[in-house]
C-alpha cells in the first residue's frame, strides 16, 4: 500500500466504479452514490479485514497466514500514512454520498452502517482481535 501511484489507482478505481454504476440508465443519482459507497465498503471490508494470509508464499514461515491485510500493512505499525489514507477515503465517500442522497433517512442509515463496518475494524484497539 506504499507503492508509488497505488493511492491514485485506488481513487481512480472508485471513480471508475461510480461511472459504471452511473451508466446504468434506471438508477437514480442517490441510488448510484449509495451503491458506490456500499460496494466500495464491502470490497474494502472483504479485502482488508476478512481475507487472511497472502495470495503468494512468503518467507516468514507462515506468520502472516493468520493476519488480515490491514494487520499485515507496514508490519503492524499503527497510524502510518497508508492507514490514515485508507481510513479517510471511506469517510470522504460517506460525506459525498450523504450530500448527493440529500440526507434521505433510509439512505443515511444504510450508508452509516456501511461506513461503520469499515471504520470499526481499523481501530488500533482492535488490532489482532478476533
Amino acid at each position, binding site marked *: 500500500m506504499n507503492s*508509488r*501511484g*497505488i493511492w*491514485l*489507482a485506488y481513487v481512480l478505481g472508485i471513480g471508475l466504479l461510480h461511472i459504471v454504476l452511473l451508466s446504468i440508465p434506471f438508477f437514480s443519482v442517490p441510488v448510484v452514490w449509495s451503491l458506490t459507497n456500499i460496494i466500495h465498503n464491502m470490497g474494502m471490508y472483504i479485502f482488508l479485514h476478512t481475507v487472511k*494470509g497472502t*495470495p*503468494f508464499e*512468503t*518467507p516468514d514461515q507462515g506468520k502472516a497466514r493468520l493476519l488480515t491485510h490491514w494487520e499485515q500493512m507496514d508490519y503492524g505499525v499503527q497510524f502510518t500514512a497508508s492507514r490514515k489514507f485508507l481510513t479517510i477515503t471511506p469517510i470522504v465517500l460517506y460525506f459525498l454520498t450523504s450530500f448527493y442522497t440529500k440526507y434521505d433517512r433510509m439512505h443515511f442509515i444504510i450508508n452509516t452502517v456501511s461506513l461503520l463496518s469499515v471504520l470499526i475494524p481499523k481501530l488500533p484497539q482492535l488490532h489482532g482481535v478476533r
Partner: protein
Amino acid sequence: HSQANGVPYKKPFFESFEQAPLYIAVLTYMGYGIVTLFGYLRDFMRTWGLEKCRAAVERLEQTDFVPLYQDFENFYTRNLYRRVSDNWNRPICSLPGPEFDLMERVTDDYNWTFRYTGKVIKNVINMGSYNYLGFAENDEKNLSTVADAIERHGLGLCSSRHEIGNTEVHEELENLIARFLGVESAMAFGMGFATNSMNIPALVSKGCLILSDELNHTSIILGARLSGATIRVFKHNNMKSLEKLLRDAIVHGQPRTRKPWKKILIIVEGIYSMEGSVVRLPEIVALKKKYKAYLYLDEAHSIGAIGPGGRGVVEYFDLNPADVDVLMGTFTKTFGAAGGYIAGKKELVDYLRVNSHSAVYATSMSSPVAQQIIRVLKCLMGLDGTTIGRQRVHRLAANTRYFRERLHQMGFIIYGHEDSPVVPLLLFMPAKTGAFAREMLNRDIGVVVVGFPATPIAESRARFCISAAHTQEMLDKVLSAIDELGDFLHIRFSRHSRS
C-alpha cells in the same frame, strides 16, 4: 560526500533507479486488479464445480487433517503465475553457456500441463545464467584436472569435513581462495545457500543485533532467523538509514534491559542480483569503523564479476580486505561450480571449522567441483601461465558497459550500477513481462523475467546477466531484438534524454 580525509570513492559511483511515469504505475495496478478479479471468478467456478480444479488439493480423506496446500497462498500461483508460466523453468538441454539448446514444449490447457514436441531449439542466446566469466564450459582440454579429480576421489565424498570428507583438494582450494582474496584464511562449503544459512547462526546469537539490507538474499534471512539474534532492516543501500539504526543500537542498546548489544553485525551483498546495484562499501566500512560494528559481505554475485582482477567489490573500490570482517561468496555463478566460501582472519575461520553446522553435518564439497574452482582461480590469478582470466574479466566489464549504454540510449529504464553485469530492464506491467519473454524466445534469445511478489508489485522486469563469453555479435543480436520489441510492446519508458 567529501570527508576529512578525502572522498570515500576513488571513482564516480553511478547507479540509477529511474521511476516510470505515474500513469504506468496506475495501469500496472489496473492490470493486476483485472487479473485478480478474474482469479476470484475462476476460484468461484472451481469451488462450485463449474471448472475442474487442476491445482494440488487434499483428497477427501485428508480434509479433516491439517491442510497440506494453503489454498489462498496459492492464489497467485493458480491465477496469475500459471497463465504465464511457460516463461519459467524452461527445459535446457545443454550447459548454461553463452548459447544453449532448449526443448520445445507446448501446452493444451493454458500451462497446466506441457508436452514436448521432440524438437530442440538450437543455439538460443543465453541472457539469463550467471555465467559471468564464461567458465561454464565443457571442452576436454580445460577440464583435464577435473577429470583427474574424479579418477582419484570419485564423484562424492559422502562425509563431513570433520570426518573423512577432508581431502588435500579442499586444503589446496582454501589456501588458493585466501591468497586470491588477500586474507589470512578461508573455508569452502559444499552449498552456496548453506554457506549463509548455516554460518550466520555460528557467528551471532541471542543478544546480538543484525543490521540487514532490505533486499538481502533468502539465505541471509534464513541464517539471521536461525541465529536468534535481533534483526533490523535498513533501506536498500541507504547509508542514512543504516547509520540511524547503528546510532539507535549504540545509544539505546537492547530493548527492555538496555544492555549493550553483544555484537552488531552488518550484513550486505556485493551485487544485488535483482536490482543490479553495487553495495556502497567504502561508506559502510567507514560506518562500521565509526560504530565498532562487524561487517559480513556476501559476494555471491560480485566475486569474479567485478574489480580489475575479479576479486569482487573490495578490489573494485580498492579497499583493504581486512576491513571486512567476514568475506562470503559462492562458486555457483562465476566459477561454473557449486558451493561457497567464508574468508577472513584465521581465528574466525578456525572457529567456523569447529562450530559451523556445515562443517559438522554436511557432506563436504565433492572433489571434481573443488577442482573446477581451483582451475578457475588459477586462471583468474594467472597461475596457469595464461592471461585468459584477466582478459575475461576485462571482456565482461566491456560487455557490461556496452550493453547498459546501448539500452539506455534506446530509452529503456534499466536499474543499478553502471558496472554491474546484472542488468534489470523494467517492464512494469505483468502482461508485458510474459509477452517480452515469449517474443524474445521467438527470436532465439533466452531471458529471465521476474514479477511480483519477487519484485515490488509495480516493478516487473527482465533481468539480463552479461557474460564474458558473449560475443559482440550476440550482444548486438540481443540489442536489436530488444530494440524491435521496444516499439512492438511499447516498453521504452525512460524519460531521460537519450544520449
